[in-house]
Each structure stands twice: as structure tokens, then as C-alpha cells.
């Protein structure tokens, strides 16, 4: 059991498909040092290892990355606390961009396929990963799910991670962009509370701006905190519900897709 969040990491992970028949970073790679043995006076010897514990996931994530690049896909890993509006944001994004882009979605939850059903209404391929008790997605789960989608016609593959700002931060899924969401109801100091997650973000989206005033959201304070903790992130302020601010997010997405498509044509240096 995870001592921090109480989840049982060893769990049954279910993957099922909802296809409707119609269409970053920074990780450590360690070479395993040959067992370098030094004799110690007490009959003990030392064995050098120097291996990252998350090495296996990191390697699978790189494999995913290469696979998705070959399919000319832009892949997003969308993260947030539960209830920030990930699914609503994705529903809106996919629907609004339907005539410009072909999208596919992999969604992770502990239980239910509610999110997949919601997203499936947009008539795009959706695969639900039900992790059971695992509180984050990992690279191998994503690859298993991706194999259930016909990726050929797609431009964009979106991975909606389990709602959790802690554990998913450490698990590279092979994505191109890490999108971290926070909503105006969560407080301006959110980035200060979850620096590991925000420092790994390529994009930070502030959601539910339509109710910002009603909850007394201090916009300048939030923006300052995001910029100080995550200076590398591109920031968008939106309401997935009303559509406010979404056009800037779409323009960014389309640009990133173009960049990704031309990346495959460059020789790998």
C-alpha cells in the first residue's frame, strides 16, 4: 500500500475499448554498472548498481514516445486534482476541433467508465483504463490502451490521467506535452503546494474562469505563483463550460501538432 496516499499499487488494471466505428522532459537513464566488487575487511564486499528505480517505466515511456512519433501523433498527458474539469475541457476541445483535427483519447480512472462514456459521445475513439486501486497511469498501461485504437488517421492522442496532483508527476507516459489543469476553486497557492507536478508542466490551464469572481479568485496572485514555480509553462485561462479563452488553447495545440509532424521529417541528430 502506498504510504502517502493509501492506494494499493498492486492492483488489477482493466482496459476496455469504447471505439465508435467511424476515427517532456527530464528522466534519468542509468547504465547498470557491472557488479563492481570491493573487498571489505569484514568479509563483506560492495556491489555497485547505480540504477534508477523508475528505470523500467522511463524506458517504456521512451519506447512509447518513439512509437507515437512514428505515427505522427501529438500526445498530451493531462493532469490535475479530481474535479478540476479535465473531462469537460477535453470534451469541449475535441468537439470544437472536430472538423480541424482527428483525436483519440485514453482515460484513466480507478473505477467506472463514466469519463470514457462522456468523451465517447463525441464519436471519437476512446479507451478507458480502470486501474482499480492504482492512483496514476504508467507507460505500459498507456501502450496497452493505445494498441486498441486505430492511430493511423489521428493527429492528436490525449491521455487523461487519474485525478491526482502527486503520484502521476513521476511517471513519464511517453507524452509530448504535459498539461496541468487547475480550477479557480482550488486556490491561488496550488502551484506552491505541488511544485513537483507544476515544475514538470509544459502547459498550465486555469479552468472555470466563468466563476472566478463568485469564488473570489485572485487571478494575479495565481498567475504570479504559476510563473514563479513553473516559468517554463505556457499558461491559458479558460472556461471549458462557456468556451471562454479556448481559442488561444486551440491555436497553441494546432501549432504544436504542426511542429510534431515536421519533427518526423527531420533527421534524428
Amino acid at each position, binding site marked *: 500500500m*502506498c504510504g502517502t496516499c493509501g492506494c494499493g499499487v498492486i492492483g488489477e488494471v482493466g482496459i476496455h475499448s469504447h471505439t465508435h466505428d467511424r476515427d517532456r522532459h*527530464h528522466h534519468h537513464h542509468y547504465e547498470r554498472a557491472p557488479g563492481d566488487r570491493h573487498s*571489505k575487511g569484514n568479509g*563483506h564486499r560492495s556491489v555497485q548498481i547505480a540504477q534508477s528505480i523508475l528505470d523500467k517505466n522511463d524506458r517504456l515511456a521512451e519506447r512509447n514516445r518513439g512509437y507515437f512519433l512514428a505515427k505522427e501523433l501529438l500526445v498530451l498527458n493531462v493532469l490535475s486534482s479530481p474535479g478540476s474539469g479535465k473531462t469537460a475541457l477535453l470534451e469541449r476541445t475535441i468537439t470544437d476541433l472536430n472538423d480541424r483535427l482527428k483525436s483519440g483519447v485514453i482515460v484513466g480512472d480507478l473505477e467506472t467508465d463514466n469519463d470514457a462514456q462522456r468523451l465517447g459521445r463525441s464519436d471519437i475513439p476512446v479507451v478507458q483504463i480502470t486501474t482499480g486501486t492504482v492512483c496514476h497511469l504508467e507507460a505500459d498501461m498507456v501502450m496497452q490502451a493505445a494498441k486498441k485504437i486505430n492511430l493511423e488517421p489521428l493527429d492528436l492522442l490525449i491521455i487523461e490521467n487519474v485525478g491526482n496532483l502527486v503520484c502521476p508527476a513521476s511517471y513519464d507516459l511517453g507524452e509530448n506535452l504535459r498539461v496541468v489543469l487547475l480550477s479557480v476553486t482550488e486556490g491561488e497557492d496550488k502551484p506552491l503546494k505541488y511544485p513537483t507536478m507544476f515544475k514538470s508542466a509544459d502547459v498550465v490551464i486555469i479552468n472555470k474562469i466563468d466563476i472566478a469572481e463568485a469564488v473570489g479568485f485572485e487571478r494575479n496572485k495565481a498567475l504570479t505563483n504559476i510563473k514563479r514555480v513553473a516559468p517554463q509553462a505556457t499558461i491559458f485561462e479558460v472556461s471549458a463550460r462557456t468556451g471562454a479563452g479556448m481559442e488561444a488553447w486551440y491555436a497553441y495545440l494546432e501549432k504544436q501538432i504542426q511542429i510534431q509532424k515536421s519533427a518526423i521529417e527531420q533527421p534524428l541528430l
Partner: protein
Amino acid sequence: MHEVSIMEQTLEIALENVRSQGVNKIHWLKMRIGEMSGVVPEALEFAFDVVTEGTIAQGAKLDIETVPVVCYCPNCGREFHPPDLFYECPQCGHLSSQIIAGKEIELTSLEVS
């Protein structure tokens, strides 16, 4: 963050490395844990006791080296250790997002017999 799972994986890596070497006991495990890795050393120590029970690592000493965060400032080309979570270069004030060290979750070495 998953210290039990991390310790289980650590033990697995340790056992894999000493398999077929005639090792009877692991006396000492050295790990390097970065300040920004998301892993809490105290929780790792607790997990260690639980996970190693009944294995050849039972009763071993767990030695955790905390690796401080080191950032690179692309503006003035220097490395620095930030005092807080705003990675501001002490020289030029540029906010860095280039982390060179401090995210490690590594099994470094073992002492065995």
C-alpha cells in the same frame, strides 16, 4: 509517493544484481534520493523494514543520501542550488526550469556477503 512500491522495486533490483553470485546476506543498501523526487526518506525507511522482512536483506542498514536540487541558469551559464522552490538564479535573477540534479530515485550500491 509510493514508498512501499519503490522499496519493493528496489529490493527486486538488489536481488537481481546479486543472483547467482552466492550472496547470503545483504548488509547495507545505499540509495540516492533527490530533494524534488517526490519521495519521502522517512516513509522509505518505514517501507524498508516492512519489505525486507523474511528476505536476505532483513536487518540491513538503509543509507539514504539526499541529493540537493541543482539548477542550470541558461542566462549566465552557471549552476546553483536554489534555497526555495522558486529557482531564481542568484547571479541574474532568471527563473530556471533546468534541473540538473535533485530528482533521483536511485539504488546506488549494496554491501553483501
